């Protein structure tokens, strides 16, 4: 019985686990969440990439398709809504919650007809 409970807990954690990476040029970029105490805005989750660069993630992501044949399917599959077509086959989309953005971008990146997908990252512009 005890074993069953432990297995159930582990399975639940696995199902609810969020990706701690995203794809960039087909390579995984590891993201480290920044503790909630240092977050300024509730609507944005902050991460650091491997180079220590701060990346904000909200409920929007970019999707670049090779063609728009499956666009509607993907909108339905991931419960996404269209914000804007930025350029040919490049779309700015909205997720239902910011906590889903990285996972959805990653799942989209794995589709064959997706050129790339990534969160609409918030970054600091550094004056030089």
């Amino acid at each position, binding site marked *: 019985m005890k074993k069953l409970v432990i297995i159930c807990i582990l399975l639940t954690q696995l199902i609810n686990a969020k990706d701690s990476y995203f794809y960039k040029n087909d390579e995984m970029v590891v993201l480290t969440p920044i503790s909630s105490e240092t977050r300024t805005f509730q609507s944005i989750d902050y991460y650091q990439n491997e180079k220590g660069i701060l990346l904000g993630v909200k409920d929007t992501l970019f999707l670049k398709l090779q063609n728009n044949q499956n666009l509607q399917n993907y909108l339905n599959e991931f419960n996404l809504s269209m914000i804007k077509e930025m350029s040919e086959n490049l779309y700015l989309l909205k997720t239902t919650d910011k906590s889903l953005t990285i996972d959805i971008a990653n799942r989209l990146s794995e589709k064959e007809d997706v050129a790339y997908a990534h969160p*609409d990252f918030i970054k600091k512009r550094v004056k030089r």
Partner: protein
Amino acid sequence: MIKEVICFSFLLFLIGCGETSSSSVEKLTLFNETYYEQQWSINYDASFYNLNSIDSDAHIHAGELLEGNRGFGIKIAVIDDGLDMNHEDLSGAVVESYNLETGGTDVSHTLTSDTHGTAVTGIIGARINSKGIVGVAGESEIIFLKYKEMMSDAEIIELFNKAEAFGADLINCSWGTYDVSQSVKDTIVDLANNGRNGKGIAIVFASGNDDQDMGNDESAIPEVISVGATNKENLRAVYSNFGDNLDLMAPGGYWLGITTLDNSANNGVATLDANYILYNDANGFAGTSASAPIVSGVIALMLAKNPNLTRVEIENILKNTADKIGNVSYENGKNIYYGFGKINLINIMNNI
């Protein structure tokens, strides 16, 4: 007949006098700028150079070219932190403006300590009006786009698209994120290749001031013109970022700063003159942020001379005419710390 010859000769003499007189007046306009002598990046003033032990080649070899080449009518978009639109040396310079935060046209600096955008814009487009300094392209038209320090990829794409919609011939970016997203990269590449009715918009980025490889920075995008900084010794400034995609060098200063405009509306940062950041100000302006607008100004002069130049042709001319400074080897014309070398305006204009 003799009478007619004498009259004709006298007429020619008068015309000659007129040209001389006009030319002198033109010349005076540059030299009437209060701080022109200390604009060491564009002006070789022997006494100023000697006084400050500046290498005699540390400037961009503008010579007297800025007298007759001022980038008239060329639209330069500057994406930066704000602008003192009422600065005396920018009177009439700004033709379009957009504030990302408000959606309005007021692009004034948010904080009293902000001055970066005004300083950058001054290097490009300060007017020739006997006030303070002269911009490299003193008759260009400025499109100012005020960004937010923390900005999403979608927002920066919006600013680049605004620049194009306003008709920008080139875009100056004296900033970077060190980590450009693919969507932003695609937008920049598209504008560089297809903007300006297919001729391509020249997009200039500062390489950064961290003495490190440019990595995945915006400045490292091959279609971007990336600019590193030189100092008064005419060598790479020690802070200037480098890499395989570094294109050019231009003066950025170090201990000796680049004289430019201060944000006079909110007191700004200058300690010696309320309206200007002088070369020796305690809060001087130096860095690749100063180098990039020098190159942007030069591109405006190129486009004013030949508006049909494509972005690729502009890049090739800049690279092929650059001075191979630094006592380093250049493989296939290039060095990772110096790019293709330091811009030389006389060479550039002679090749258009």
